[in-house]
């Protein structure tokens, strides 16, 4: 299965009963089992390489790439940053983050509105080749879409859902799955709060009622407000992961 590094696993999960003209086959297998299998394989790579992996999910234009640009500026002195940019067509976002000093591979899905684990796997191998080694933190910018990406585990350590202030307060209620499956929630473009009806506390509470464990950040990539907490969170997560890996 893994044609890049040659560590394929067999895949024979079908169990057969009966022997007449009609045959019943018990399958009992997730509809997403192919994706999940490759996602677990991705995680093995990332654990072996000691990489913290962050999967960013939001609607188009919520500010994923802009937040990444600022994050790279603030982290690149101490950490090696790699980015996989998911987009339906263009190379633009990869170029934007490269200009800030990160290594980046563009993943074009050719129409699909979400990333799946096999494409990410290919992208990671291309990225480590480009970097001559593994990054400390790998960011995966998913395709701009708040629905599908939350069904596809990529092997990440932390899933982050983002909502920008202009999108409005009702997003957590409308896209519960994205909030239920994420570990962190970033409210972006907070510099625009004076111009929109967006009650930060209300949105936070609604998100927490979907997922009480959610870590919530409010940031403006423009003014820089809230970036420090976000950066500290990333550093803390990296430390936690490396420590956990040393134990096993």
């Amino acid at each position, binding site marked *: 299965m893994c044609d890049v590094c040659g560590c394929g696993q067999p895949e024979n999960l079908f169990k057969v009963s009966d022997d007449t*003209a009609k045959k019943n*086959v018990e399958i009992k297998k*997730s*509809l997403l089992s192919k994706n999940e299998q490759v996602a677990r394989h991705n995680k093995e790579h990332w654990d072996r390489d000691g990489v913290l992996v962050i999967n960013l999910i939001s609607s188009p234009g919520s500010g994923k790439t802009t937040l990444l640009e600022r994050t790279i500026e603030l982290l690149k002195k101490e950490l090696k940053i790699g980015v996989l940019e998911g987009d339906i067509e263009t190379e633009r976002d990869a170029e934007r983050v490269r200009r800030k000093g990160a290594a980046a591979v563009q993943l074009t899905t050719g129409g699909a509105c979400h990333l799946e684990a096999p494409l990410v796997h290919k992208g990671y191998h291309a990225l480590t080749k480009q970097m001559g080694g593994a990054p400390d933190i790998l960011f995966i910018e998913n395709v701009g879409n708040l629905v599908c990406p939350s*069904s*596809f585990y990529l092997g990440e350590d932390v899933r982050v859902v983002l909502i920008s202030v202009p999108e409005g307060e009702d997003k957590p209620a409308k896209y519960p799955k994205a909030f239920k499956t994420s570990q962190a929630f970033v409210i972006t473009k907070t510099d625009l709060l004076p111009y929109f009806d967006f009650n930060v506390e209300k949105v936070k509470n609604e998100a927490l009622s979907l997922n*009480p464990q959610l870590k919530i950040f409010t940031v403006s990539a423009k003014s820089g407000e809230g970036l420090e907490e976000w950066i500290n969170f990333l550093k803390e997560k990296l430390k936690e992961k490396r420590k956990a890996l040393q134990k096993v």
Partner: protein
Amino acid sequence: MHETSIAMGLLNSLEELARKEGAKRVLKVKVKIGKLSGIVIDSFVFAFNALKEQSPRLKDAELIVEEVPITYRCKECGHRFQTESVFFPECPKCGSANLELIRGEELEVVNAELEV
């Protein structure tokens, strides 16, 4: 939208299964879809029926969907209850929020009937 790619994945694995079993056709396939799975059942069924036409082995396959309700178990008092709401609920018996989700996230192929 991901309903299409999940339906495609299901059809691919059925095709593979039929080939392995030397089956002429797939007659039925049963799937379980939880209300918290993030799948819109109508879109999934639509995609399945549109895409199956491309394969002579699959074009007659009937898709049976079992929709699984959201069920929690209260860790305080043991009460089990179903809910329609996607929000994190409280136990209707004792008010505790210490709950375990036991059903509702299913996204599973259960079995298939083949003509051999």
